[in-house]
């Protein structure tokens, strides 16, 4: 460029380090102003960023446009950091969903990384952005409670949404998008619990968790559990008539009354109502592991299922006095893989995961929280298990609750307090930490809390923090 600058001005060779780890080496005369430098950097050969959006930082200072290289005292071999300044909003969302990506860029579906300050604090903001707001109707106003959360969400509406293929497609798209996953992993609830993070990382598990079919089942279960004991326990989606005529139980139900909640579970796998019956979906099309004739109890299933099914039955009976073994949100996690592979009979990639999960109380708790209010009858009930299940446990609350309202007992609430003192809860871990030379009780406990009881992670935290 200005190579014909006065000769007494030494050329300076320096690096410009951009955010994406790109490094540009430039040699410029010392009289070059920062504005000139930005113009030079704006070319596609370098940063390809308009000068007004470039922020140059050297030595802890933001360089002003009228500064010259000499006045910034930059020397050979030094490095200037190039940072992308706040984006103008116009540049962010290619309007509409999908159709406008005709550009030459190999546009992998991308959640805007430069979320403006307003929504930046919501880990799931990307989901509410224009990209995933395509065809389906957003939940109507009435689904938001007075506090802006989803407290009053109408499960029927959500179910309806689930039936919309457009919506499903978008859900799938979102779930396959690494950026979305990353955002979820960054949400504090997930980040602080390595096990949950692990689950999110497992694509199989993830797909299962966000499988709309699964969500639908869950919603229905919650509804069933919250309803009074009269009426059908498992109304069809959208059914307004909750009289005991459960359509799914009309065929091949050995000694089970029409209103028997088990009927749909144990009833013929080939039952005509398969599609609408949540449990038919749960057990997968024809490969019903608990075949109709034996009428065996769920506990004859394979390991992972056994532990939860039986365990939760007891709990459920104790806590809510309903005898519905299948009304177990975990069943939806454990039982059906999204491929409908007939529960845990095959070597199920989820089995291992779920077994781990069962053994980790911290994890259980987190999972329960995700499941929300319906977790009442299980294990350690959250402090306020009175929350109306459908709203709180609704996975959509997390997706659609921008800003404050994650609704009821959803993501927003702190973990239910374990009433035991920390020295008891983390007795083993604390001893290990002590043996390793970490003696500060308070810090140890904090670290363990953050890591969900994982010693390794706690040590990392102690060392770094």
């Amino acid at each position: 460029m200005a190579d014909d600058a006065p000769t007494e001005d030494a050329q300076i060779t320096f690096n410009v380090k951009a955010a994406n780890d790109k490094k540009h080496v430039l040699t410029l005369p010392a009289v070059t102003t920062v504005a000139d430098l930005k113009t030079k950097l704006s070319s596609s050969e370098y940063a390809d960023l308009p000068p007004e959006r470039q922020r140059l930082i050297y030595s802890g200072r933001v360089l002003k446009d009228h500064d010259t290289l000499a006045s910034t005292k930059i020397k050979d071999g030094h490095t200037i950091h190039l940072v992308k300044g706040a984006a103008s909003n116009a540049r962010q969302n290619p309007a509409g969903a999908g159709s406008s990506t005709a550009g030459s860029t190999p546009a992998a579906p991308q959640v805007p990384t430069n979320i403006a300050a307003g929504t930046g604090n919501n880990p799931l903001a990307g989901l509410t952005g224009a990209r995933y707001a395509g065809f389906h109707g957003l939940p109507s106003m009435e689904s938001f409670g007075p506090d802006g959360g989803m407290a009053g969400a109408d499960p029927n509406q959500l179910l309806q949404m689930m039936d919309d293929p457009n919506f499903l497609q978008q859900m799938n798209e979102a779930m396959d998008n690494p950026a979305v996953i990353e955002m979820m992993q960054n949400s504090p609830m997930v980040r602080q619990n390595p096990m949950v993070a692990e689950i999110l990382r497992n694509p199989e598990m993830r797909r299962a968790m966000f499988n709309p079919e699964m969500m639908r089942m869950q919603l229905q279960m919650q509804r069933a559990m919250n309803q009074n004991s009269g009426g059908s326990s498992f109304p069809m989606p959208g059914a307004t008539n909750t009289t005991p005529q459960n359509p799914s139980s009309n065929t091949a139900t050995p000694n089970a009354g029409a209103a028997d909640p088990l009927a749909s579970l144990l009833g013929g796998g080939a039952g005509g109502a398969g599609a609408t019956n949540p449990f038919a979906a749960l057990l997968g099309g024809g490969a019903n592991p608990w075949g109709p004739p034996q009428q065996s109890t769920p506990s004859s299933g394979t390991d992972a299922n056994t532990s939860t099914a039986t365990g939760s039955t007891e709990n459920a009976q104790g806590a809510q006095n309903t005898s519905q073994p299948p009304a177990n949100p975990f069943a939806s996690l454990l039982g059906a893989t999204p491929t409908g592979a007939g529960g845990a009979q095959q070597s199920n990639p989820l089995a291992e995961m779920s077994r781990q999960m069962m053994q980790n109380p911290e994890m259980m708790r987190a999972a329960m929280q995700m499941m929300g209010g319906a977790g009442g009858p299980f294990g350690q009930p959250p402090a306020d298990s009175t929350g109306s299940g459908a709203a709180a446990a609704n996975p959509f609350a997390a997706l659609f609750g921008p800003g404050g309202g994650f609704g009821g007992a959803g993501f927003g609430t702190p973990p239910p307090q374990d009433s035991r003192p920390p020295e008891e809860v983390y007795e083993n871990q604390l001893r290990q930490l002590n043996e390793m030379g970490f003696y500060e009780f308070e810090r140890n406990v904090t670290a363990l809390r953050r890591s969900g009881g994982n010693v390794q992670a706690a040590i990392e935290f102690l060392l770094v923090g």
Partner: protein
Amino acid sequence: MGAKVPRNFRLLEELEKGEKGLGAEACSYGLDNGDDLLMSDWNGTILGPPHSVHENRIYSVKIHCGPNYPDIPPEIAFTSKINLPCVDQRDGKVDPTKVPCLAQWKRDFTMETILIELRRYMALPQHKKLPQPPEGTTY
């Protein structure tokens, strides 16, 4: 424990690291005045952590390394206005008791450590949503 690196050597080391950009991407620091032989006054910048209100913001801080650095932590003051519990809203000074790495200062912490810690402090769940004064305002 090995030999103690004297203050000036230590600061020279940090200066080189800062100028050459060898450290973490999100922070930068350097001497306020290149002729300052005592290397006491430094500038630092922190890039706001992503997924927080600080995203895309650049915060400037002043760092003062007293004669006893690195045995005692330097004094930090924000030049850019920022709303954080550890920052005095009147003059931008960072309250050392509220930032773990300053409260439990170790000799081998550097200014970079502090900047990174402050950045992380901004990104804490309880801090990352705090309403912030308009960008570009200073104390």
